[in-house]
């Protein structure tokens, strides 16, 4: 019985963790091209989810809403890049940390005023009954999360490897200056990475909202976990985020069960600080050599 509860907790936690992994993957995309990440990514997830909910309320069918939300997220990503990141990158400063925090704050305030401060339910297209796997109940929505996360990450990886634009993306990630000399516009590639990252954030929002509901506070709850996953795995770790995300999700759900729900984030946060101290480049990250 006890073992079964642990299993149940771990599995549903791990499936939630895949959403963190997807948001963390969004960080990787922009970090690869520009060594910058959007500190307001949680707000992007939240605003895109609200927008998608509004589309549904307006009578847009579910399968049309998904691309709609995705495009909206991509547009927000472009806005963040233009307003918050490009100037700092041109000046080679780290001003983008502050600017993306500020833009996130603005999105938060806008969401509070447009959609209200309360959490709202988000409909799921799946029936609420669950499937039993080795005695563990998994809902259809949770399966959809796992499939959706892996599908979008797989699609983007294929895009990066198989298309010309994707190869330009990889070239800028490897060496920005050399890519520019070969006639690839680094600025456009960074824009592309922010648009992709915004789209990924929107998908994460649409996938997670039926489980967690939508509300302004979901931003800060998600962002910290996604950060933890991205950094513990390493900002250039590729699919490593999925493993770390699942582990962190499971740990969190067990901690909230055994220590108390107020403590659910504590083990992950301590793990984050420790992991940073021991391996600043992350579990799956590559360490560089200091050069003079």
């Amino acid at each position, binding site marked *: 019985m006890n073992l079964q509860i642990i299993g149940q907790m771990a599995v549903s936690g791990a499936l939630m963790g895949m959403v963190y992994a997807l948001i963390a993957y969004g960080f990787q995309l922009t970090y690869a091209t520009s060594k*910058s*990440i959007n*500190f307001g990514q949680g707000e992007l997830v939240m605003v895109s989810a609200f927008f998608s909910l509004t589309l549904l309320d307006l009578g847009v069918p579910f399968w049309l809403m998904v691309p709609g939300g995705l495009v909206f997220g991509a547009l927000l990503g472009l806005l963040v890049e233009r*307003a918050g990141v*490009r*100037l700092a990158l*041109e000046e080679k400063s*780290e*001003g983008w*940390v*502050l*600017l993306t*925090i*500020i*833009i996130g*704050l*603005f999105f*938060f*305030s*806008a969401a*509070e*005023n447009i959609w209200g401060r309360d959490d709202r339910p988000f409909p799921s297209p799946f029936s609420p009954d669950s499937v039993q796997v080795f005695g563990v109940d998994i809902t259809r929505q949770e399966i959809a999360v796992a499939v959706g996360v892996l599908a979008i990450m797989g699609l983007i990886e294929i895009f990066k490897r198989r298309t010309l634009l994707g190869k330009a993306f990889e070239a800028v990630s490897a060496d920005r200056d050399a890519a520019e000399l070969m006639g690839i516009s680094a600025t456009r590639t960074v824009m592309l990475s922010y648009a992709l990252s915004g789209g990924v954030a929107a998908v994460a929002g649409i996938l997670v909202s039926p489980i967690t509901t939508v509300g302004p506070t979901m931003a*800060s709850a998600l962002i*910290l976990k996604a*950060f*933890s996953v991205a*950094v513990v795995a390493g900002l250039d770790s590729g699919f490593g985020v999925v493993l770390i995300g699942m582990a962190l999700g499971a740990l969190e759900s067990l901690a909230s069960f055994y220590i*108390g729900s*107020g*403590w659910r*984030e*504590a083990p992950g*946060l*301590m793990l*984050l*600080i*420790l992991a*940073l*101290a021991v391996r*600043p480049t992350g579990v799956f990250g590559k360490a560089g*050599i*200091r050069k*003079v």
Partner: protein
Amino acid sequence: MKRLLLIRGAELALFALLATVPLLVANAYALALLTLLAIYGILLIGLDVTVGYLGQINLGHVAFLGLGAYAAGIGVTRFGLGMPSALAAATAVGLVLGSLLALPALRLEGPQFALATLSFTALSFTFLNEMEGLTGGAQGLSLTRPPLFGHDLSPQGFYWLCTVLLACVWMIMRNLLSSQWGRAIEALRDSPIATDAMGVGVYRHKVAAFALGSALGGLAGGLYAFNFQYLQPQSFVYDLMVILLMGVVLGGRKSLWGAFVGASIVVLLPNLLSNRLIFQAVSGLGLLMALVSGIRGLLRKTTRPFQALAPIVSMGLLVGGGLLVANTEDWRKGIFALMLFSVVVGLPEGLMGFAARFLVRLFRVAPAPLPAPSSLDEVLPSRPADGSTLLELIDLKRHFGGVKAVDGLSMTVRSGQIHGLIGPNGSGKSTVVNVISGLYPPSSGRMLLRGKPLPLGSLYRAARSGVARTFQNLQLFSELTAIENVLVALNGVYRSPLPLVLLGMARAEERHARADALALLELMGLKDQARTKAKDLTYGAQRFLEIARALARRPDLLILDEPAAGLAHPDVLQLIETIRRVHQRGISIILIEHHMDVVSELCTVVTVLDGGRVIAEGSPEDVKRHPKVVEAYLGQTDRDREAAAPDAPPLPA
């Protein structure tokens, strides 16, 4: 002197004003605002240490405010502490937890550092919220302000206490930041590698600075607790953190005045938002400023279009939104965001930075004259060159993955020599230097300096044991002036204990140090450019400044890594002359150089490397004719190949 008087005068006037206001205005609300201003002043000065001086986005400061507040609150309610000991406890909590967080977090840079501190804020909130037995949890913690030395403080008395503490913090920080210690912190932002290589530990300075800032956060927290007499974990979260950051950035980073201005803005913000008229006036003024400076910048082409337009758009949104929105309070965060965005983009140095530029133009006051340089004999006393073994490398190896950059190298440098190290590109010269100076640990092999093992893999400890180096790719502290660059590295002058430095009683030492530094600049022909920022010096002057800075270490062994690279011919001649003069003072030198004329002119012994091994050693004339050296530089001739034929298989065509 006049400049100093102006600055000190402004500070005195500020504090005199702060002290007398409660006597003139008997308004409880105004007094509450002023008290909060003094508390936030201390808090933001602490935050500015990391955000301004270390240049890192610190999202953990609010946690230290909260932890300090709870330490004082719990100290008073549970343990019956008096006010001084409760404040000391709050400061200590900030200091200790700050060091504990800094130890792992400051190994990180940029976004990772911001993340680590953000996690700390979330973690401390969880702790305060969940440890209900200790903190009262979400219910909050009520306390009453304890008496100070037996006197119950009136609100006015408490305000004066806060102001006095702010004045003390201000004075201590000013002295500290203008000392050797503060200079090191500014230097490490420009080049952490050079800071370590000059024997000034980067990591320890960063940790100490962060811990100090956190201690001030804790102190402010203690005062916060006694001010509100009610604490809730919910007060110390990310939202407040963003406002504090905004205060520092808006006010102006790296400035005590900036922190104070920022604190005033943070304190006044709620009033700004609750009164529609004030809000419209302020946002209108902001738009006007953005328009004027934006259009001026565009016309003079001093700013990028984005930098001019973005603040106008954002202030325009603020003004337009202010007319449309029914209740500005609801849009609090959005309004912060728009204001902060305009300032960060349009006025990156903050209000005080802007004002300072303006004031400097208004009061043209010459800086205090530099002291006369010390005599060179005092700065670099002549040492006997006895030709004994100084540095010994035994079978040194350094591999990077499969690349054997240094592969079993042994060589000896004798005291009082200029020892040349030459070889084609990729022969391992730079790696040897990087291993000796501690940038990389060797893969195997031993290094002895005067018979004692050299510290491995630590620039800082290698520098401390007497090795100083220059960098082929310049690593100057570009935002510091030439004389400050030398002062950072200056070894053996600063001896005053920290408490004296904090009280501003180490001035004589500072004068002495300046005179010494000036003597070294004079030796390098840079005396007239002592006050020029390193980044504004000519390329040649920057190379000489590197040498002056390394000499300030008064090293046993000076390593010059391609000092003539990129120099014009007259500069090369001056370089030769200068190195010779340094050598005459008995300093042993390893010289890496591609200019053979420089090497022939200066070196007594030359070691030639190829493929990470020594292929020849001897006087410059000998090695020039050595067949292996000729081969390494020019390749094999056909005749060489025929001569080598008996023991080597013929090369495939």
